[in-house]
């Protein structure tokens, strides 16, 4: 008897078939990966399992017993635990409080903290998920918060753990330690459903892989027999060809940093003596473990941090005192790391977001006072077509777009004015294979027309395949940028 089985699950939203008679089973002690592009139906299936949606057809059985549809409580009772991509923790409560939140009856007169505390300590110990129960969530790193989410599910006696894109927010080290945790969980008989579109991670962690495309299971295979290219082909329905870097002579120096120092608002040093020149027709990569100053460098090159000294020049013109508006005006395009928090204003329409960087330009404003909505909508229409944006139109609210489409919208806004220098900070993080190829093509096209590009990434494979030169960031300092032929040096100092 399987731990969990889906039997012919179908779910339609209007004319869209999100899940098309899906049958799957999960055995005790195994990691099953659910692979698929954004919109393939992975999340819908998991929402049906967790009781957020009711399936139109089909049923789910846990240990041979029918799971009542549409009830989250029943799902939890049956031992299903879900770790969402966006954590559902309260920042101002402690680890322990977050974990017991919702398990205590509203009507009990006193907390039963000591029992909870010892249960948590026991779990943390046996699964080697060390965490301070009294730490505030707000003070924890992303990896630690994920650990709390997992503990929260285990505390509710989960036997089946669903992890939705668990590595999207983690550094490579944190991913490594998550995998160790997952292994120790499955050794104790837990079953894990691992949702991702990162092929190499899926191959590394899972026992079996099910590939979803357009709501259907198109392949189920053992991880030991699968290859990366085969999985990508199954997932996309066609062989995916990532663009290849075309050899090109670098042109004139576009951006140059010399002896650049940056400080935080409380005067702590963030960057020390950074030297870097990026030439036309060139992509320079910044490698390194997160938290070594990449964010600080991105802030400086976005015009957000003005506590800087040294030289920062574009075409030989100093930008040391400039802010974001001047950066954009003089030809710097910036693709931010956090596309939801910084890249877009979700509550505004698409046409409003495409003009956010040049509100007072002659094209989209009248006398720099009035917003020229007609012109902005026209621009939005043009960009939607040109960048193949899937949306209801220029008037649609931006937060309704999928992650990949939001990134396309940011690319459209940033690349369409043809900037001379482009800062691309984690531009493909969390995107599916098709969208990744698209973003990379766009960056290559910009390089071809003569832009200088600085690419910040934690994914070494990405850097090695995309960059003309790579520099490593470590504790606020930047190494010399060298061609990826010297890749051994790069990998050894980055890890």
């Amino acid at each position, binding site marked *: 008897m399987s731990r969990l089985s889906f039997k012919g699950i179908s779910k339609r939203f209007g004319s869209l078939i999100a899940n098309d008679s899906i049958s799957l089973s999960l055995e005790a002690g195994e990691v099953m990966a659910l692979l698929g592009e954004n919109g393939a139906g992975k999340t819908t299936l998991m929402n049906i399992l967790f009781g*957020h949606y009711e399936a139109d057809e089909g049923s789910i059985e846990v240990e041979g017993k029918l799971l009542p549809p549409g*009830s*989250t*409580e029943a799902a*939890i*009772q049956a031992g299903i635990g879900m770790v969402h991509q966006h954590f559902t923790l309260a920042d101002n409560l402690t680890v322990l409080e977050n974990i017991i939140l*919702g*398990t*205590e*009856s*509203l009507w009990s007169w006193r907390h039963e903290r000591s029992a909870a505390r010892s249960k948590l300590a026991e779990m943390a110990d046996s699964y080697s998920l060390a965490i301070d129960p009294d730490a505030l969530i707000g003070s924890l790193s992303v990896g630690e918060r994920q650990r709390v989410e997992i503990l929260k599910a285990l505390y*509710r*006696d989960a036997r089946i753990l669903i992890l939705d894109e668990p590595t999207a927010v983690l550094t490579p080290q944190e991913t490594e330690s998550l995998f160790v945790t997952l292994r120790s969980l499955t050794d104790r008989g837990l079953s894990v459903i691992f949702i991702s579109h990162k092929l190499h991670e899926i191959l590394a962690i899972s026992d079996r892989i099910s590939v979803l495309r357009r709501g259907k299971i198109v392949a189920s295979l053992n991880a030991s027999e699968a290859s990366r290219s085969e999985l990508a082909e199954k997932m996309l329905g066609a062989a995916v060809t990532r663009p290849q870097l075309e050899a090109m002579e670098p042109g004139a120096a576009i951006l140059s940093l010399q002896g650049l120092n940056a400080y935080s608002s409380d005067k702590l040093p963030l960057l020390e003596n950074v030297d870097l020149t990026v030439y036309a027709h060139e992509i320079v990569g910044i490698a390194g473990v997160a938290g070594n100053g990449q964010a600080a460098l991105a802030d400086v090159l*976005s*015009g*957000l941090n003005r506590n800087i000294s040294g030289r920062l020049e574009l075409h030989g013109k100093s930008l040391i005192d400039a*802010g*974001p*508006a001047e*950066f*954009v005006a003089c030809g710097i395009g*910036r693709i*931010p790391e956090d596309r939801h*928090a*910084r*890249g*877009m*204003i*979700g*509550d*505004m329409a698409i046409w*409003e977001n495409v003009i*956010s*960087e040049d*509100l*007072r330009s002659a094209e989209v*404003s009248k006398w*720099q*006072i*009035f*917003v020229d*909505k007609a012109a902005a909508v026209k621009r939005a229409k043009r960009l939607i077509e040109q960048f193949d944006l899937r949306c209801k139109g220029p008037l649609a609210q931006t937060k309704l777009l999928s992650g990949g489409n939001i990134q396309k919208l940011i690319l459209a806004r940033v690349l369409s004015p043809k900037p001379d220098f482009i800062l691309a900070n984690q531009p493909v993080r969390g995107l599916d294979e098709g969208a990744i190829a698209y973003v990379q093509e766009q960056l290559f096209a910009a390089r071809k027309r003569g832009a200088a590009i600085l690419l910040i990434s934690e994914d070494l494979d990405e850097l090695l395949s995309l960059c003309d030169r790579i520099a490593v960031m470590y504790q606020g300092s930047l190494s010399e940028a060298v061609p990826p032929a010297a890749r051994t040096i790069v990998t050894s100092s980055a890890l």
Partner: protein
Amino acid sequence: MREAQSVQIEARDHVSLMRVSMAPILAILATMVICSVLILWAGVSVVDAYALLFKGAFGSLFALKETFTRSIPLIFTGLAVAVAFRSKFYNIGAEGQLYAGALATVFFGTGLVNLPAYLMLPFLFLVGALAGGILLLVPVLLKTRLKVDEVVTTLLLNFVVLLAVSYLIEGPWRDPMAMGWPQTASIVDAGVLPTLVSKGRLHAGLIVTLLAALLIWLLMRFTVLGYEIRAVGFNAKAAEFSGVNINRTVVITALLSGGLAGMAGTSEVAGLKGYLTLDLSPGFGYTGIAVAMLAQLHPLAIIPAALFLSAVYVGADSMSRAVNIPTYIADVLVGVSVLAILVSVMLTRYRIKWP
């Protein structure tokens, strides 16, 4: 292990326009149902009480004039709150800014400046707006420079201003001709707002406030500045990244918000009383928050929202004279209606799933 038998709240897939426009109406109906318990408690027929309230607010020309007169300061303060809340600056200090505007009006209007009426009235509104705006700059700078919470500072400044008014009208600014009453001298004739209809208190402040609502709507909807104010309110980080000057936008928003509240002060002094006393405003600044919430921060919706709350106050006054229900029922009605609107707005976006 016990499991929580919880009610779940889920986001709706899409929010229909029908639902959005029905929300305030249903909220008002719910308010009337809830408050009818209190009316029954007072031993009065619910139908009679609401009929009397309605008659007191709209039932005669006099009632209508009173309702409109009372709505003037509420439109101003409602706009003040809406503009600030739109950019996520929580200005709870419209009451103090109203009095600051009134202080500036009597300072310049009682003989210090003499202009013909067509210049004097715009001038008084201008100084009233400046006084309100400058007063609000203090919490704004404390917030942008030192990250001091504006809810606390704007709220506490209300009491500071009221004490200052109290000092001035008991002391240096007291009118020696007022036979010992704590009030300032009257403003000059050129500074008095004309009445709109004969016999009654309805004054030209109504036109100014309706114009203000229209202008604020145009500003928010069609201008680059309005875009920036909304952008800062929705997502300040993204706005800053795009090149919006956050501090500048917040300062301008504060000047607008404080200015509108200050104009409420000018309008009350120049349109109704002619001088300043400590009871100039029975809490118009606070009721402005209710107006803004009821209007869901939309500048044009402020007008019906202010008229509704004004009708509640005026109608409850008249009802309490006719039957044995204290006028405090008006405060309860307003309070419950704000809660009801908050709940109904939430219900337009989310649905509740019972276990």
